[in-house]
């Protein structure tokens, strides 16, 4: 990074809103980032890196809070996050990428036309005429061979192109079939019964009840959750699922509760074996449980 530019650390802090209370510094950085194209591009790339680090879980707890509460507020950044997840899914499942077919095109010998008449002395008039005749004949022959050669090379190229188009179509068809199969499988997975989790105030952190365990099977995509809210009023609630270390792995807003019970589905994919706590707005303590991942049916 050029010396005239702020350091990566400073840019990161800026992007996480840590200079919002330092008006002058913040202003200076904002202006510099807006008007220097090169710096602007670096800032954009660091923004992408922050998202990658966030998805890697490679950030401090404070930075994670700053990301959720500040950095990810703009829709543009939420879209960037979504895009980063898309790329990860692609490269994590199929890292090998493409094997691009290479065409070998026969190299055509360069046609070299040299007019050497000016360099050779004229020995006689007849000789001159006969040479002109031979030269003309040779030129016609070269032209004819050239045409034949070109047509043969063109034919070869056309066949190769045709073959490649055909194989591309076949690959596209296969891909489309695979997409359909994946979609079918996903539908089947959706119809399988989800893992069940029932929580009540006995599962409050430090509560006296037995430890609650949810068993997640390999095919479970969702964890159907029911929280007994006791005497809490009906209405909309916000929930947040945290790991033991306090890292939020999922949250949802505006979940309706009725008759003192809050029912919703959580994604199973982000949950690995271990202890988790579920915060529900208006409840004084989180509900905690153990997750077990069963490897077999």
């Amino acid at each position: 990074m050029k010396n005239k530019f702020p350091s990566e650390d400073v840019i990161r802090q800026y992007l996480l809103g840590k200079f919002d209370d330092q008006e002058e510094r913040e202003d200076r950085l904002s202006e510099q980032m807006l008007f220097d194209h090169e710096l602007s591009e670096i800032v954009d790339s660091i923004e992408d890196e922050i998202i990658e680090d966030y998805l890697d879980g490679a950030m401090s707890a404070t930075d994670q809070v700053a990301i959720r509460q500040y950095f990810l507020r703009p829709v543009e950044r939420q879209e960037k996050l979504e895009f980063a997840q898309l790329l990860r899914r692609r490269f994590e499942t199929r890292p090998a990428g493409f094997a691009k077919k290479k065409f070998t095109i026969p190299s055509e010998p360069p046609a070299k036309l040299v007019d050497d008449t000016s360099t050779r002395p004229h020995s006689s008039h007849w000789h001159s005429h006969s040479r002109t005749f031979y030269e003309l004949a040779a030129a016609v022959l070269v032209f004819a061979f050239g045409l034949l050669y070109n047509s043969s090379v063109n034919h070869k190229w056309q066949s190769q192109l045709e073959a490649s188009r055909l194989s591309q179509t076949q690959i596209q068809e296969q891909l489309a079939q695979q997409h359909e199969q994946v979609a079918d499988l996903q539908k089947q997975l959706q119809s399988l019964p989800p893992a069940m989790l029932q929580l009540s105030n006995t599962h409050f952190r430090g509560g006296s009840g037995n430890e609650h365990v949810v068993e997640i099977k390999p095919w479970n995509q969702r964890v159907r959750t029911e929280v007994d809210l006791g005497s809490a009023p009906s209405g909309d609630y916000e929930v947040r699922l945290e790991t033991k270390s306090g890292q939020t792995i999922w949250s949802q807003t505006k979940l309706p509760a009725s008759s003192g019970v809050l029912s919703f589905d959580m994604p199973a994919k982000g949950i690995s074996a271990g202890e988790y706590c579920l915060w529900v707005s208006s409840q004084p303590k989180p509900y905690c449980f153990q997750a077990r991942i069963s490897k077999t049916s």
Partner: protein
Amino acid sequence: MGKYFVRKGCRDSEELSGETRDRVVKIINAGREYPKPEALFYSVASKIWKEYARKPRSESLPSDDVLPLRQQETDKKEQQAYCLEKCLAQLTESDRNLITNYYQVRGRNNTEARKRLMAEHGGENTLRVKAFRIRLKLRVCIDACVNETVK
């Protein structure tokens, strides 16, 4: 100008850039001349941001639902994945290799491989910017592809 507000973590970035444009147009229509229009834009945007930051507003818990479950979302993801394949195929071979390698060497266990890739591409910053440009190309391509599929 949109970037200015996005970088400030502003939820209504588009609305605020629109407001900036409107105010700048008003100022210019009033007949005053500004030798540096970009400076005028910046000062107006900065003023709007300060006004916005002062306004009280309720910030609900951000919805960072990393794995949304709705069928609509699943369909969208499938479509994006399909378009991603198409767009990856349209990249040059060197861009495709770079972005593939970039993602392969992420994570703590790949420090050496990451260093090698950085060295191959002129250092950490250059690699990062190159990867950013490729991602940008992919995003533009995927957006166009998804829109086309929707039509």
